């Protein structure tokens, strides 16, 4: 069973929030004893999700949770926005698919950088992406 031992919520509206969120994620990943490579992976994954929230939904919130599953410690990050939502998640998860002339590697890349990846989206309601990384 996964328990949450600490939770921080940051609201995301602009680039300063992005910087702050990434720093906070890195600090907490460091505190949990993640390796430098894993710290970089988690921070980069968060950067992708937040950039998406800013670009497509105009912002949202990020919950950063220190979690525990038995003896394993981990970080869970939940990005929620109330933007337009994604009509076809399968397509959005495809490498190279982008509606904004981006590389289209943000979502599929993020999935590869973390241990658990879950995406929910409903057109007109918003998008929620949950990722976890375990030690």
């Amino acid at each position, binding site marked *: 069973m996964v328990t949450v031992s600490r*939770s*921080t*919520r*940051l*609201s995301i509206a602009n*680039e*300063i929030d*992005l*910087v*702050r969120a*990434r*720093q*906070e994620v890195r600090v907490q990943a460091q505190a949990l004893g993640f390796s*430098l*490579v894993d*710290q*970089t*992976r988690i*921070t*980069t994954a968060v*950067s*992708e999700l937040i*950039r998406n929230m800013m670009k497509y939904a105009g912002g949202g919130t990020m919950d950063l949770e220190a979690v525990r599953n038995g003896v394993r410690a981990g970080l869970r990050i939940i990005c929620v926005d109330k933007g337009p939502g994604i009509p076809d998640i399968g397509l959005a998860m495809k*490498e190279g698919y982008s509606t904004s002339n*981006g*590389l289209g*590697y*943000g979502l*599929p*890349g*993020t999935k*590869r*950088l973390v241990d658990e990846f879950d995406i929910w989206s409903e057109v007109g309601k918003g998008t929620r992406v949950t990722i976890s990384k375990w030690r």
Partner: protein
Amino acid sequence: MKGQKFPDILRKRKSEILEGWMKRQLSLAGKGTTPDELRKQCVEFLDLLENLMQNGGSLDPNDPKARPIIEFLKELSKDRVLKGFSPTETATFVFSLKEVVLPLLQPLAKNEETFTHEVMPLSILLDQLGLLTFENYIENREEVIARQQLDMAELSTPVVKIWDGILALPLIGTLDSQRTMIVMEKLLQKIVDTAATVAILDITGVPTVDTLVANHIMKTVAATRLLGAEVIITGVSPAIAQTIVHLGVDLSGIMTRATMAEGLKLAIRMTKQQTADERRDGINPLEKGIAAMQPAKGQKGPR
């Protein structure tokens, strides 16, 4: 502060104090501190306060007995800075306790002796703790701002000519939006102005290389090549290299080196090679450039 009654009162009426204190802070609960978290913080603080008073109530930072409560307030301030609390909201933690505690001491305030030896010192102590929280908040906040400024640093970084035909451009901070575009344009202009053949793009100062940053890098490389020059990316740490690979972004067509020094070595070799080629071909770069333009003209012209 000997033989005080306050620690007694605190011990006996702790739950009552706790409830009153919590109630005064509920408006803050929505800001990312859950009621449970807040309660935990309050309980811990009351314990620390009780301990402190039993040990004489000095707040001298050199006094080991004062350290736990000072450390606790430091952590609390830091947490609240990160959660976006205002200074007032942060200092309220201690000051609202005073509002709850002082009325309980009313009976002691009526007697001059207990007023001077009990109520006043406690009131002063709580004020000091409140101010300490305030001070910590400012300190933390300044630190956060300084870090952010560094990170968001306006990329006024100059494009420098570090060697004959070689330009260097150290990138700093989050490579976002327009700033990156401005820097890239500057680089391209400088390549034209100085007829440089190699540009070293150092990303040591870029904390996170995500798809957006990678995209900027790729676009810069493509544009530079259109001008007949090459780009070497330096400052790619092993952790960042691995992460880029995991992201799936393909930078394999781009020359990279771990450090600026190695990048420079490679760049010098490249420019030397080029000069050697030109010497062998027996034309100087300008002639070569003109020569390169001739066929184009020739093709367009009548045959």
